């Protein structure tokens, strides 16, 4: 309906131009523009999601590089890929990276890229805890939490057909704006409800993969016990509900699942061998 109205309005504008013999307006291009406005509100398809993710991942890697430790990177990729295989999007180009930063944080990028900081990894005790955190991030990708937030915000940031230009032309200025906006999402955070959903389903994914379901709650308790003034926590605390609140919510909603799968593997020894050296 809105598109139709816009078409009519554009048609009117074009006829006005014709009347006054102004430089010719390409009506076909205008129709395309209206179609593009329509496309912008539709879903971004999977190749586009993956493409946006790559560009955003490149920016995040510009803020902090990978830890120069191939064995560690491969280890985290193995854990992550095993978890992702238990989900409804098993064949995305999943890739996992440990970022060289003392900050405590993790990031999920559209299309299947997950980052975890060295600072967070250093505070974990076993592979089940790592699986809990990666499971949480995997849910953000599965449910397209960031993609939806980027899309929603970009529609107001990028007027008219700029959104489809940003999707079509990966070297253009509209693309640059979209990716800048998409990267900034990580300093603003998602809706709380997205974070709680990622906690609930992340626990399930870790349990499916054979891990102690208490991995994620254990990490949350570690964070809850840390000094909230520690600047390493600043961004994570700004962009997520407080760990205590997340633990409360998990306890309310997930106690039966947590208990049913609490006896599964923790793999502390393998984790320590791979991470703490």
């Amino acid at each position, binding site marked *: 309906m809105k598109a139709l109205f816009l078409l009519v309005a554009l048609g009117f504008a074009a006829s006005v131009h014709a009347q006054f013999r102004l430089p010719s307006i390409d009506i076909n291009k205008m129709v395309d523009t209206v179609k593009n406005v329509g496309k912008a509100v539709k879903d971004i398809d999977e190749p586009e999601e993956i493409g946006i993710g790559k560009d955003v991942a490149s920016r995040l890697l510009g803020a902090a590089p990978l830890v120069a430790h191939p064995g560690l990177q491969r280890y985290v990729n193995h*854990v992550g890929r*095993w978890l992702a295989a238990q989900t409804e999007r098993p064949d995305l180009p999943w*890739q996992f990276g440990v970022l060289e930063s003392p900050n405590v944080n993790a990031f999920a990028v559209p299309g299947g890229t997950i980052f975890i900081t060295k600072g967070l990894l250093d505070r974990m005790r076993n592979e089940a805890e790592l699986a809990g955190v990666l499971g949480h991030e995997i849910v953000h990708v599965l449910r397209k939490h960031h993609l939806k937030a980027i899309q929603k915000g970009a529609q107001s940031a990028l007027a008219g057909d700029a959104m489809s230009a940003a999707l079509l032309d990966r070297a253009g200025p509209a693309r640059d704006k979209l990716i800048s906006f998409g990267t900034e999402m990580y300093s603003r955070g998602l809706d709380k409800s997205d974070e709680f959903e990622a906690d609930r389903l992340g626990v399930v994914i870790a349990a499916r993969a054979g891990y102690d379901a208490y991995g994620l709650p254990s990490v949350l308790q570690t964070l809850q016990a840390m000094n909230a003034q*520690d600047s390493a926590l600043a961004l994570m605390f700004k962009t997520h509900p407080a760990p205590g609140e997340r633990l409360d919510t998990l306890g309310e909603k997930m106690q039966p699942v947590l208990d049913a799968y609490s006896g599964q593997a923790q793999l502390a020894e393998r984790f320590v061998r791979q991470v703490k050296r």
Partner: protein
Amino acid sequence: MRLLALLLFAPVLALAEPATVIRATELKREPATDSATVASLAENTAVEALERKSGWTRVKAGNDEGWVRMLALRFGGTTAAKPGASGLTQLFNVARTGTSGTQVTTGVRGLDAEQIAAAQPNPAELAKLEKFAADRNAAENFAAQGKLAARPVDYPK
């Protein structure tokens, strides 16, 4: 090697932290709901957390010792500069967190809000990231090595 051994045992020995019970909770002899009750702890009882075993934490409450549900515990949140922490405790904290359980760190971190906003693309690192990715077969082998078996678990409604 000694460090590795220390790290391996860190999960068992690491905790000796003040915590609070957030709701009325039974202190159990063993980490199981059907275990005998040692004492009933009122809401806000101060305890000392000693050890965690998945969903349970062993605590000392006054003269009693036993297990409470991990989700019933909250830690102080302000653990900076615990007076009287022994050298040994500090060592365990180092083992546990990789740096220090209580240290407040400052300085350049690369991943603060401003740095993320100002970040420029890093295609060289992106290429490395892609190189480290594992395929499904590799992941399945890795899981088998850890004796991890997949099982169906439904998402909550």
